[in-house]
Every structure is written in structure tokens, then in C-alpha cells.
């Protein structure tokens, strides 16, 4: 049933293209609608995996250290990401608590762990155990990770708090700031390149 691996169909307009040969950092766009058809990352798989591991390390740091500390009349109060999630749950905003936990903790963590796992085998041209389900999950989880929005949100919250409290940014927010630099680096990675490693069952 597989027609040809030399063809490519645009997801956004169904136009059929020949599979282009891409050099590093090159992007192929659809001639009809301009959507990205395929891209090859500036970095190789080894370097990408290093980025993912660095991001994972920063993510752990961002989660164990407090994000911000506020001071008022000598009293101090700080919170971590999980502190924020738990307090929203207790304060009758379970919906917000779940959205926050999913988009800022579970999905980003899953993203980094599974991408690291897949790349660690993919760089040797092999499919990792659990390749297919992980790739499918990554595809669906992708749009729902929001760490970068959280960093901007923390900035807004600090500015708002500044008129009433002393504000001390903590290690957590610096780790998060560095984290989104790394995640934007590997966000440009075209997951479909990994599919090409695995021979299809029908072929």
C-alpha cells in the first residue's frame, strides 16, 4: 500500500511534492500554500540529543528551586512550580491546577524524556523500544507544552508584585529562562525525520 517514500504530501493543502534533498538548516515549503513540508535541523542528531539532555537538566533545576520570593515587612514567601499547582488545587481552582500541571510539568517532561530516548537510539540509526507509541504521543502532545508562556507569566507576576512587595527572582526562574532557550533550539526539529529510520511494515 505504500506508494513511495520519494513523495511528500502537504498536510495543509494536500499538494503532492517530490521529496527534496535538504542540507542542514534548510526548509522545504509547499509551492501552493507555503506550509513547511520538511526541515532539516542546523544540528545533527548527536548535538540535538545534547540539547535535550541540557534542557532536561535545566527543567529539573527549574522545578526543585523556588521560582520567586516575595518579601513584606520582613516576612518572606516563595514558591516552586509544584507549590503553585498544589495551591491552585486547594483554592478551588482545580481546572487551573490541572491545566498548569499538564502544560508546564507532565507534557514538557514527557517531551524531553521521550525525545532523548528516541534520539539516543536514532543517532545510531535504530528505533528505540516503544518507538511507535512514543512518536504518536509526541505528535499529539506537541502543541500543549507551555514553558515559554510560564516564563513570561512569571515576569508579569513579578512586575505586578513589585508595587506592593520586595521581589527576589530565584534560581528556578533563571533555570526556566535558560530552559526555553534550549527548547526553542530543538523545537525546530522535524520529528518526521525519525520515522524515516524505521522501515514500514507494509514495505
Amino acid at each position, binding site marked *: 500500500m*505504500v506508494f*513511495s517514500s520519494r513523495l511528500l504530501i502537504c498536510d495543509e*493543502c494536500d499538494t503532492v511534492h517530490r521529496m527534496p534533498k535538504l542540507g542542514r538548516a534548510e526548509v522545504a515549503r509547499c509551492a501552493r500554500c507555503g506550509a513547511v513540508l520538511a526541515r532539516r535541523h542546523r544540528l545533527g542528531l548527536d548535538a540535538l540529543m545534547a540539547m535535550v539532555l541540557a534542557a532536561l537538566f535545566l527543567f529539573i533545576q527549574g522545578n526543585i528551586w523556588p521560582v520567586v520570593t516575595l518579601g513584606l515587612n520582613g516576612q518572606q514567601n516563595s514558591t516552586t512550580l509544584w507549590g503553585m499547582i498544589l495551591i*491552585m488545587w486547594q483554592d478551588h481552582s482545580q481546572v487551573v491546577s490541572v491545566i*498548569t500541571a499538564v502544560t508546564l510539568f507532565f507534557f514538557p517532561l514527557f517531551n524531553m524524556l521521550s525525545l532523548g530516548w528516541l534520539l539516543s537510539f536514532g543517532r545510531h540509526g535504530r528505533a528505540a523500544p516503544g518507538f511507535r507509541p512514543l512518536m504518536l504521543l509526541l505528535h499529539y502532545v506537541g502543541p500543549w507544552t507551555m514553558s515559554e508562556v510560564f516564563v513570561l507569566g512569571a515576569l508579569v*507576576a513579578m512586575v505586578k508584585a513589585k508595587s506592593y512587595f520586595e521581589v527576589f527572582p530565584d534560581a528556578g526562574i533563571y533555570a526556566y529562562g535558560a530552559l526555553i532557550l534550549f527548547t526553542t533550539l530543538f523545537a525546530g526539529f522535524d520529528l518526521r525525520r525519525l520515522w524515516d529510520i524505521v522501515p*514500514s511494515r507494509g514495505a
Partner: protein
Amino acid sequence: MTTLPRAGQLGLIGCTVCGLVSRAPAFADAGCSRCGSALRRRKPASLSRTWALLIAAFIVYVPANILPIMRTASLGDVDDNTILSGIIELWDKDSQGLAIIVFCASIVVPICKFLALLVLLICVHRRSPWAQLQRAKLYRLIELIGHWSMLDVFVVALLTALVRFNLLSSVEPLPGVIFFGLTVVLTMFASLSFDPRLTWDDEEPHD
């Protein structure tokens, strides 16, 4: 019109998950031979799903804006903030740059998303060939910026966790923030269920 061939004309079908190109299957519930996802010419019931999610998002968008999202209490002095009043406060406190960013994320982005999906849906219903390239770009734009609206939700969550000085000062979330979070989630589902390929289907019959 361009003469670029489309998958339907060549009897091909592309997997939207892994990108594999297959011959269009004769039976309805065929799966991609590489990733196992269902092979479909278009997302199933794309228009009705998108309409339903869009309308649901709009219904929760109203209380999200009218109801306060956050209560600030300091020494018995209680102050309820809506999305808009929070932005005005930022502006008044000399953080105009940030006020503009929050205004874009919380007000401009959701409204643009509603209008954009409305335009995309109506054009598909009319099978209009009008501004197809611009509509394709519009869809990509809302996919790109949609999740930034979650900004205010995270601000309220963080302030709630931070401002806990007993009687001196405290912040608590109010129902508006729940509705706002739901609006963002529903509009994201709405744009994900819209099939951008429909924009180019002006000459082919719908299924």
C-alpha cells in the same frame, strides 16, 4: 490556477501523523502502514467539530471577561480584578510595555482566534476560492500564537502561591480565571480540529 497536483487527484493519501504517502485505500478505516494512525482524506467531521468547539469557547469567554479572575486582600481591603482591570493597573503602574504584551495575549489573541476561525469556517462552507493563500497563512498564525493566551492564568496561579502573608496580604483565584483557562483550551482544540486542507477544496466535493 496553478497546476500543482493534489493527493486526491493522484489517488494518493498522506498520513498527517508520520507523513508517509500511500495509495488511497479502497475501504474506510485503513491505517497508515508505518505509524498505524487512521488514514483519512480529511479530518473527520472537521467543520461541525470546529463549530461546536468554537461556540463552546465563546460561551465560556463571556464569563472569563466579566467575572473577576483574582482577589487581592490586604488588611481587610478587598480588590477584585478582571482581565481588563489587571491590564489597566499594569498600565497605570508605569509598566506600559508589559501592559501591551498582556493586552495582546489576553484580549487580542483570543478575539483574533475567534474571528479567524469564523472566517475560515464560513469560507469553507461557501467553497470560496477567495484569498486562499492568506487564509492558509492565517491558520498557521493562530496555531502559532494560540497558547500564549494562557499567560494570565499562569500569572494568577503564581501570584496566588506567592502572596500569602496571612492577614497582611493575600491573593486568591476567582472563577473568571477558570473560565479563561477553559477558553484557551477550547480554542486550541477548535483550531486543531479545523482541517486547513478544506480551504483549498473549492473545486472538489466535500465529504
